[in-house]
């Protein structure tokens, strides 16, 4: 078989593959170069932060009535606890535009906006700072844990003063 058509076909296949990797033309959102994998464990989830215990089950805005101006997202479920005490760990990033810092706390709610979990910020996410110039720290990442193992979860950045902002939604 002549080599020329094979080379041509290989070149076309490469071009098609690269074309498929392109971002949609209608999206101008900055690309965050981060891959996420899910780890499962039989271990129990870590205990929630002490500050969230009295809030569990309450309406999000009943506890945090003030609206903050943030950007961020709930990126992935990165850990599933599949032992006797099940649960999920969600990760993402957050940035408070007013305070110009990551919100100190993360609150997770269910679909009805009842508080079901919590976590902390300060984790390393250099990809976020690289993609969004307004984020001036490489530590805008967060992790939060909930006892839920299915359904939709909303993530909020929050602070003690009662300010909070919605970061995103993710399915467990």
């Amino acid at each position, binding site marked *: 078989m002549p080599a020329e058509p094979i080379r041509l076909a290989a070149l076309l296949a490469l071009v098609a593959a690269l074309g498929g990797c392109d971002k949609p033309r*209608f999206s101008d959102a900055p690309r965050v170069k981060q891959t996420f994998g899910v780890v499962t464990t039989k271990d129990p989830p870590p205990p929630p932060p002490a500050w969230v215990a009295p809030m569990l089950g309450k*309406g999000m805005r*009943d506890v945090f009535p003030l609206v903050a101006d943030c950007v961020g997202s709930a990126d992935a479920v990165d850990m599933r606890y599949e032992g006797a005490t099940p649960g999920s760990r969600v990760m993402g990033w957050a940035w408070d535009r007013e305070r110009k810092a990551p919100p100190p706390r993360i609150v997770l709610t269910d679909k009805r*906006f009842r508080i079901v979990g919590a976590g902390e910020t300060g984790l390393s996410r250099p990809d976020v700072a690289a993609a969004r110039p307004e984020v001036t720290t490489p530590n805008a990442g967060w992790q939060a844990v909930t006892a839920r193992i299915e359904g*939709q979860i909303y993530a909020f950045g929050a602070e003690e003063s009662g300010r909070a902002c919605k970061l995103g*939604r993710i399915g467990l």
Partner: protein
Amino acid sequence: MIRVSSGRSVLSPDRPPWLLATAYAAAATLAICWPVWPGFMTYDGVLAWEQTKTGVQTMTWPPMHTYLFALSRQAGAGTGGLLAAQTFLLFFAAALALGLVASRRWIAIAGMAAFAALFVAVPALLGVTFVHWRDVPTASFALLGLALWLAAARARSLPLLVAAVVSIGLAISLRYNAFALFALVVPLMVWSPYLGPSPARARIAVVVTLVAGLALAWGSTRWRLPDLAPVPKVDNFAGTQLLDLFGVSACSGRNYLPPAVAEGATVTQAQIRRAYDPRHLHLTIKAQPGLPHFFETDGDGEVKAAWRDAVARDFPCYLAHRNAVFVEQMGLSRYGVFMTTHPAIDPTSDRIVLARPGYATQAALYAMRSADGYGRRPILLYLAAPLLALLAMIRRPAAWPLLTVLLGGCAAYPALLYVAAPAADARYIFPSSVLCAFVMVASALILASPKRQEPAPDAG
């Protein structure tokens, strides 16, 4: 037997007053645009303008407004170029059409003066023309379509007829609901393109151009220019549905608001009643002491589901709420007319400012302060237009097809808004208000014209 073919006899035997219409439109454009140059802008207008630099990013608002701004930018006229163009088109079209129904030139001139005077007498009309709201070019292209149609009928001109339908397509591409203005016009255009005996090719031209125009209008909201990239469609109805949920909840005593609307805050019935304002969703959800923070959201589909439930379970309350919005919309509220104008330019990236802020403020204040007078509200246009049209039809029976289809537009446009209006802003009914103003003046001109013998149906 009804003889639609005689409708053409309502048209003046004189040539269309092209030069007079141009001079009149230029004077009206100068009077309206000079004080508010380059035109007030709200969020919608600013976004449409910014997209001339960034490319169309959203189909939440039909992108035709952006394309008109782009033409203005390319012409080096900035935002003011579009303000002048849309104002000129509006008054040019009105003058041309009035000149075509007036039997004498001086009667046409009186009609043009009366049409302009209605903008001062009903300040909700004037106030809207000061702002870069796409309701104005919608009305301009709608009226231009009407004027070109009448000119086409008088001259039996196929090019003018096609241009009329293209203009109607442009109006619909600016506002989807503009098709209601032509709900009865289009059937008459297809049936009797020249308002009298019409060749089949004229009918075919109307149908083909209309189908092509509507397809392009639809396509313009799917793919953007110039790269034809697809832009995701946005559900525009969620805002209306959310306002409806507040209204039905306030009326029925049942809380239909999905948890996402208050993000889990406990909401009492008293709080919903306090928050609910039928004039606008943003007034309803604005931050107020003692109320939870309400968010403008579709609740990931929950608002739509709750809306269906609310309308089905509490239909009388849904109607009561829509009535409340309609009352505000038409200027029937005892508090006056809502959002007559927007007396400012919201921040733009290129820091557009008013050329004459003092005059602009005076113009805006006139519109806002005088619009609430009981004799100056938009509803009067909707009452006077059918009354005068009826008298004109009695005097000149040949006028009934034309006046009836125009009245159909006057009624169908606000009727559609009755169920679909996301807010009670005066600008939403601007196109139909302008049409009513035109019908009023055209009817008056027919009444003022000396009665003449109607030509035979087949008279060219």
